[in-house]
């Protein structure tokens, strides 16, 4: 279905949620155009420790090290998830790759769309965040407002 629509380069935003997996599964069912490329993107937010300046000096280094360990773990998990999604896309004929970015989710997702020169951004309707909005995740909602490319919301 993507062939004549000009959707040759697709970016899928993943976050480990069931909706984002469904978004990837939907793309896997599409017939890819010649040379169709899917980039599976997952953004990992840096672990922020509040009130760090108030923590005694000798504790600060230990807490920072623990935060870094957690962050590295999140990156490793995200990498496994994007690789798994990319692997599932290849049998249907798409060229697929996984990308993990670090930073603010929306900004990084839009940066990934620009970097991949994508024609369409595919997102699950609801995200993995604790503060999920009613029926639509905050990232999906913000992406609709700010993305310069069509956004496909998968429910």
């Amino acid at each position, binding site marked *: *279905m*993507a*062939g*004549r*629509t*000009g959707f040759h380069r697709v970016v899928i935003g993943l976050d480990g949620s069931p909706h984002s997996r469904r978004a990837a599964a*939907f793309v896997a*069912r599409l017939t890819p155009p010649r040379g169709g490329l899917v980039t599976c993107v997952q953004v990992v937010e840096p672990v922020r420790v509040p009130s760090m300046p108030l923590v005694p000096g000798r504790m600060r280094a230990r807490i920072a090290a623990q935060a870094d360990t957690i962050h590295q773990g999140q990156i490793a998990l995200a990498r496994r998830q994007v690789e798994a999604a990319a692997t599932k896309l290849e049998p249907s004929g798409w060229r697929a790759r996984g990308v993990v970015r670090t930073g603010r989710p929306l900004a990084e997702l839009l940066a990934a769309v620009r970097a991949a020169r994508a024609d*369409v951004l595919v997102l699950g309707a609801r995200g993995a965040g604790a503060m999920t909005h*009613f*029926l*639509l995740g905050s990232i*999906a*909602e913000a992406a*609709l*407002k*700010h*993305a*310069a*490319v*069509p*956004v*496909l*919301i*998968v*429910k």
Partner: protein
Amino acid sequence: MRVNQVLFPTDFSTASEAAGRIARAMALQAGACLHVLHVVPPVNDPSVGAEKLTRVAKSLGEGLRVETALMSGRAGRSIIDYARDKHIDLIVVGTHGRTGISHAILGSVAEAVVRLAPCLVLAVPAAVLEPDRAPAPEPAAGAQPGRPCLVCGRAGDELICEGCRTRIRAEALEQKREAERPGRRGSPV
């Protein structure tokens, strides 16, 4: 998840033009039926919409099964109701891609559709128009003639064109009517 029914709701604005082309392309590729829907605000004359709707359906429908529908009511809710009734698999909706206050007013239909739709939604920003068909950049201050309407982007000499002004007023009136319960007057605070 096969796409058999594609719905393209249009308000005939520039923003929905890009969505129309993508809806057509997707319906062609999937061999799906393309539904073209226009929702007229309750106080407006629907006959104007019918004519434009036929024209849009004709321009998009070559080589496709096309159904047109004209509904009267609040756009967001009517689109969702239509999608449920006709078992629509994909809604392709144009967005104005604005932010802030103007977005709160203008993007509300697309937002309601994305939030409440029972199916896939493809939101197409107006900026996706091909370069030769994209609206001309805003002229420098002082050059009033040909200034595009802030809402639909069509050329005109007013900040907001007559059609958009009427639509915004009608939507505001409709919302006010719904907000005020019978027998209660004044602010619904």
